[in-house]
């Protein structure tokens, strides 16, 4: 037998369920709101600063000297941003009249002319005879290859080495190229 009170309970049940769902929706909205507040600072208190703003400049240059072994070499630098505009290594005579079984070196320089530090990695590539062709070929090296961190305004000397094998193939003899090897230095802003 149903009492007036229990009938009231039965009528109230769907309404209570709707209330629960409503509370859940509100609660999730609140949660999302808190999430947003975490990133957008809903409780506010302000302190204002003024500041000048400027963007960094990234400018790595390739430098060479006619006499890099001098006590105070005179360096000539160029932007040389692409392979096609590569800076000519002035002391290229270091790699003249190479013969088997010998090591030849010269020094070049990279210079950070930007206003932010750079992480620089250098590589060397053979482009033409006498450094390309029939194996065994000469071994090329650049040191330090990096990555090295170069502060704004700083420079770093790189040693470029060509090692000819003792059994260097005779097809490499009597060869000349004005662009036989290329050093590429890539500088990236330091995170």
């Amino acid at each position: 037998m149903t009492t007036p009170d229990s009938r009231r309970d039965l009528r109230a049940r769907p309404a209570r369920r709707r209330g629960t769902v409503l509370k859940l929706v509100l609660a999730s909205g609140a949660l999302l709101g808190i999430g947003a507040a975490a990133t957008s600072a809903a409780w506010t208190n302000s302190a204002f600063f003024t500041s000048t703003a400027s963007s960094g400049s990234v400018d790595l240059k390739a430098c060479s000297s006619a006499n890099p072994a001098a006590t105070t070499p005179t360096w000539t630098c160029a932007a040389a941003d692409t392979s096609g505009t590569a800076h000519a290594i002035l002391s290229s005579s270091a790699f003249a009249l190479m013969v088997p079984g010998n090591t030849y070196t010269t020094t070049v320089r990279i210079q950070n002319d930007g206003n932010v530090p750079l992480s620089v990695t250098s590589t060397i590539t053979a482009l033409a005879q006498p450094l390309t062709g029939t194996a065994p070929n000469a071994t090329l090296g650049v040191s330090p290859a990096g990555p090295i961190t170069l502060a704004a305004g700083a420079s770093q000397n790189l040693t470029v080495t060509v090692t000819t094998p003792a059994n260097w193939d005779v097809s490499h003899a009597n060869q000349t190229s004005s662009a036989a090897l290329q050093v590429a230095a890539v500088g990236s802003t330091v995170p």
Partner: protein
Amino acid sequence: MTRSRRLLTAIVALAAAVLVVAPAALRADETSAAWTNSAYAVSGASSGSWSSGPTSSCVVLTAAGVEKPGATCTVTGVTGQDWGDGAVRPHRRSHVTVSYTLTGYVWTDYVRFTGSLAPAVAADWLWSTTAVTNESGAVSVDATARPVVTLRSESWATASMMVVVDEDG
């Protein structure tokens, strides 16, 4: 757990995930947005002259200048000795000795050596300006294809021939 409680839990988890992942994604953007600038340098290069050359060899010749049947000559070494004067490229000088063993020869015979002197000196030796001369009149020298040379000596001289190699002629 009731349905509504499960729903609430899922929403809470989703919100937490958004809060955790979003800043990390922003950090990833920061590290991948590096500026780069390159600098290229190029150099010329050239190579000198050298020859794979013939394998060193020697023969015993008769007084008439023909190879003597039955006689043998075997090269045992081509070695150089620096004069120790501290000279540097291209002003170096070296004494080069070609050593060999002979069989079946007589004192009137000759020995002819053909081979490269390059193994006896520094690898960067400048052969284009080099002069090769004998150490005694008993050795004749043909160095037109230097570092490959042809040397001829009287067999009775010794079991070797010596020449002077001057880098600057």
